[in-house]
């Protein structure tokens, strides 16, 4: 009996060791990006450029740089205002989308929960279908609308469709389904109107869901590439994510610092919001 217990114990230990190994492998891209951001631009270029390599030569991916320097960050932040400007462009796109998406989707989800009308489920089905479509499918529709509104070369062409994207409505409605009706009924009996019930009863109960929607939207739009390429012609108005996507082909030197710099705000949000995210995106399922 004792022997069997020990074997089970050893098995468990081996399992954990394996898991830790996987976690370490899993983290490699992130670790490399972080440590290499302290390399000098010259060292990065020497390590990663493949132009002059023979068949049997390989790029050098060093986990720990030989010489630690902040020169990449210095170049990024102080040499030219372009990068900070692009960072600010990203903020200008993402912030309205996140705020608008929360406002619209929370209220729409509330309306979907409260109202009873014929065809409600059909409407919601349309929301789900649009939510599932890949970005490329929406390109032409987005372009048509931007053309109607005459906003093709402005952030609004990205922001407005972003605000009305159905993902938030879908997630928050699922979230509200798990909310007991009794709360709303009780508030009604107490004489609260729909506005008050929304603000004082429903919103506090779905705050995890709202935080999750905020974070998912943030992650999506902070990294946007395609829409910006299509709608923003002026290179100075591009968000930083575009610059990072182009860095791969040309300037290697600052790419790592740029990546870390750009990922930092989102990582911070993730660190604080991780519990919200975990509790928020798991909703009691797709009960229709």
């Amino acid at each position, binding site marked *: 009996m004792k022997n069997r217990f020990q074997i089970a114990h050893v098995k468990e230990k081996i399992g*954990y060791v394996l898991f830790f190994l996987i976690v370490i492998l*899993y983290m*490699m*891209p*992130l670790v*490399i*990006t972080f440590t290499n951001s302290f390399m000098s631009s010259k060292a990065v270029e020497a390590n990663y450029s*493949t132009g002059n390599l023979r*068949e049997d030569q*390989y*790029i050098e*991916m060093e986990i720990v740089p030989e010489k630690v320097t902040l020169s990449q960050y210095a170049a990024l932040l102080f040499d030219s205002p372009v990068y900070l400007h692009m960072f600010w462009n990203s903020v200008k796109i993402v912030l309205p989308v996140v705020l608008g998406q929360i406002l*619209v*989707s929370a*209220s*729409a989800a509330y*309306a*979907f929960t409260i109202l009873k009308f014929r065809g409600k489920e059909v409407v919601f089905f349309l*929301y789900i*279908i*649009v939510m*599932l*479509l*890949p*970005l*490329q499918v929406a*390109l*032409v529709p*987005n372009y*048509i*609308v931007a053309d109607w509104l005459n906003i093709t070369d402005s952030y609004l062409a990205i922001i*407005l469709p972003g605000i*009305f*994207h*159905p993902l938030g409505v879908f997630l928050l409605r*699922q979230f509200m389904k798990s909310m007991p009706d009794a709360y709303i009924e009780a508030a009604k009996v107490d004489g609260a*109107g*729909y*506005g008050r019930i929304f603000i004082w009863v429903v919103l506090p109960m779905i705050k995890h869901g709202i935080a999750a929607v905020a974070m998912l939207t943030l992650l999506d739009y*902070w*990294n946007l*590439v*395609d829409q910006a390429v*299509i709608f923003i012609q002026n290179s100075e108005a591009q968000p930083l994510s575009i610059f*990072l*996507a182009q*860095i*791969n082909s040309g300037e290697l030197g600052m790419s790592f610092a740029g990546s870390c710099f750009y990922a930092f705000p989102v990582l911070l*949000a*993730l660190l604080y919001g*991780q519990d919200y995210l*975990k*509790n928020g*995106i*798991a909703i*009691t*399922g*797709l*009960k*229709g």
Partner: protein
Amino acid sequence: MRKKWALNLPWIMMIASLLGFSFFYLVPFFVSFLYSIVDNPINREFCGLSNYKQLLQNSYFMRGLKNTALFMAVSVPLNMVLSLGVALVIRNIKSYSNYFSLIFLIPLATPSATSAFFWQNFFGLHGVLNKYLSVFHVDGIDWLNSKYGMLVMVIIFIWKNIGYNMALFLSGLSSIPEEYYECADVEGAGWGWKLKHITLVYLSPTTFLALIMTFVNSFKVFKEIYIITGEYPPDSLYVLQHYMNNMFLSLNYSKLVSATYILTATIVLFVVCIFRAERKFSDHLHY
């Protein structure tokens, strides 16, 4: 007066969302249908369904369709299984489990360009993988341009998206009452029995949600692939979005819209199936 406004509030909210949704997605989507039945957007000569017919005979479109379907058929189930596995392990780790789950969430926050850059340098001809293989005297190949390209794509997708489902599963797991497991322990049930008869059963609503979200996310892997391989990737990596993107850039809206209608029809079919299955499944399950 004030009361009346409050009574109408849910309708106002509904109409606001519906207007925005219709104006930015539904209406232009249906309007765009007109593009698909004319020969080109400038001439606007009616040509019936010939665009659709041409698409189904176009080798690029069919290749994209085939590769997308293959990619999803492999990566979606794989991601579901692996993320559930990770969630189960993390749930069993007593201390620091929050840090472990954070690690799996970080790739979501990493800029696509950053992860694309890493994977390019990992799987490239002069990349790290070949460097280690050369130690064992295995000749290096350009993995992305080889017949393993699809596999690399799956790995990148899993790496990025495991955390998303893991987060879903973790909170799904935390809603299963501990007593169920204790009961099973008393009865002497094994690990496999508990997984099959308790965990998977009570996790099924979460599983359906995870499936939907994995599906949504599986389209997004295109961003990384696009950054790595550009507009014209090797045949094995050519997915539907490449075709659409290229049609968009070459202003061939008629073909593009026809392609989106074919894809949308496929997705509608898929969603109807999923919802049917979900309803059947939850009817069996009595809460």
